[in-house]
């Protein structure tokens, strides 16, 4: 099918700003689903609140636009009740890791078969550009006009530390990587974390004098490198892309279906 077959066309053009990376994530998330040949009725997309979370309005699946930070908790209820459905949870960095950090680490711990896609623009886009837990130390935002004194999370390290069984990172500059990784993440039986670095030209770019979408994506191109690449060895400051963890472990929603048998 074509990408347009998966969207609710009447809401287009979408609300995201010109050059916002979230559209690229959406586009390639659709491609991944299409390439996997999944039926639209088998997919549930759950989002929280944020620019990124507006994605649920656009996608023609079962869509659940919830409250800020709690998407994974809603998704857990969906998945346990219907383990046969594919549950995708696209989130903003604030949604996933600031207010939503607790649900994130616990979903990872349980290894429930949900694909968490973090559309990481290192800023709170929706509310107008405040710093987020992934805003790198020293970068500017409307609540950190001289540069934030907060350290940032490394999403990959965080996900590994809390036990996610699939962990990957890529960027909007690398759209095929996005869909390739997402395909694996979706197929993976367990909790999958996919960080996609996704530009917010309107706030992150502007506040930090980093230019527009093209400049930010160029930055992603230049400052990232495939895992274990030679470039990384030469320049350890580069951010690695790729799949950092992919391990088969007992899955939670499945274990839940067994509990009645275990008891008798």
């Amino acid at each position, binding site marked *: 099918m074509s990408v347009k077959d998966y969207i609710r066309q009447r809401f287009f053009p979408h609300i995201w700003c010109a050059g916002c990376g979230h559209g690229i994530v959406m586009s390639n998330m659709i491609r991944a689903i299409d390439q996997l040949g999944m039926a639209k009725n088998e997919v549930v997309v759950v989002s929280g609140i944020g620019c990124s979370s507006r994605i649920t309005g656009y996608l023609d699946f079962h869509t659940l636009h919830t409250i800020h930070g709690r998407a994974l*908790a809603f998704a857990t209820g969906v998945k346990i009740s219907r383990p046969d459905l594919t549950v995708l949870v696209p989130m903003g960095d604030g949604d996933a890791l600031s207010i939503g950090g607790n649900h994130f680490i616990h979903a990872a711990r349980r290894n429930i078969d949900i694909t968490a896609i973090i559309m990481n623009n290192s800023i709170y886009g929706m509310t107008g550009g405040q710093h987020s837990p992934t805003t790198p130390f020293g970068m500017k935002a409307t609540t950190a006009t001289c540069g934030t004194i907060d350290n940032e999370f490394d999403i990959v390290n965080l996900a590994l530390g809390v036990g996610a069984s699939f962990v990957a990172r890529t960027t909007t500059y690398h759209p095929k990587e996005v869909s390739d990784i997402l395909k694996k993440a979706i197929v993976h039986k367990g909790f999958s974390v996919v960080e996609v670095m996704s530009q917010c030209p309107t706030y992150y770019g502007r506040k930090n004098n980093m230019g527009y979408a093209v400049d930010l994506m160029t930055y992603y191109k230049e400052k990232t490198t495939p895992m274990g690449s030679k470039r990384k060895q030469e320049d350890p400051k580069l951010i690695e892309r790729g799949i950092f963890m992919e391990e088969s472990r007992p899955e939670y929603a499945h274990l839940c279906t067994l509990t009645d048998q275990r008891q008798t």
Partner: protein
Amino acid sequence: MESTVKFLQGSETVVEGALYAGLQFYAGYPITPSTEISEILSERLPLAGGKFIQMEDEIASICSIIGSSLTGSKVMTATSGPGFSLMQEGIGYAIMAEIPLVLVNVQRVGPSTGAPTAVAQGDVMQARWGTHGEHAIFCLTASNLQDLFRLTIEAFNLAETYRSPVILILDEIVAHMREKVIVPEAGEIEVVERLHTSVPEGTEYHPYLPREDGRLPMSDFGGKHRYNVTGLIHDMWGFPSNDSKVAYDLLRHLVDKIEHRADSLAQYKEYFTDDAEDLLISYGSSARSALHMVERCRQRGMSVGLLELQSLWPFPKETVKSKCEGRNHVLVVEMNTGQISKEVSQASSEPDKVYLANRFDGAFISPEDIMQILNTVQGKGI
């Protein structure tokens, strides 16, 4: 399943009622004095083919049952004061998105951590107004376990019929006491099932378009209709809208579907009210003490009666008003500083005849406590 006589704890009774009503998914986080509900369900629910999960906190608990409800399950969570406060945002979402769910709040002394194991009825107003924004809610309570069993089922029935969260508000005494419960055979008490849309696949389905009777048929996530659910003001398809007409219609609907039924759906019981000169109004465990006192008064020739409220919200104003008519005194018996008493005053045409008999110190209000206040109100001193 035949009707059976059981000797149950309050918490067990809630579990029995919920299972009778067809509970399929429960998520909770332990908290005194509601933990027993989780503990019992962790064993019972999987055996009944349902799913139990202990979530990381109360916020996650209510969110996950909302997610599950959308797949077609009957869902419940249980908590107490602090957890109830944490669930307020989720309750608002369920109100806005019209998600059927049952939330049990076993009250304890507050505010804050208060006295976790002591009895109180201080969360009644919070049940009505705890979440932000204009809204309405159903809230039921019970004083004895037979009624509790029935009202638990009623809570599920209201949730399904009106696509709304329903709060079953209990107190420590009722939740922890044990007494006889007759669990009727299946079918004896009506159980309202999820109303599914009859719209066939391929035809447009409107998740938020009420039928003529006001009900909104649902379609399960994973089923044949794909639609959107949101906590934003939304149109009949479930998509966000900035239109103030849409906002007006939606909010009016959310309030009216509940408030308009305040009296027609009201659950209450009357004891010796026909000729009572003085009327007690009470609910939950306080009503047990009140009834004890009423029976004793009657034995001693005093003309006192009791109206026991089981529906707290929407408040059955007209019902209460008519029951208060012509009494010498109306004494509201509750364990707080007068949360329902204030509603009764407002309902009554003679608010200055409405008095409060209360305790809020964590000790269970006794028939003697009430008797002394009634005496005082009657001008007899304690």
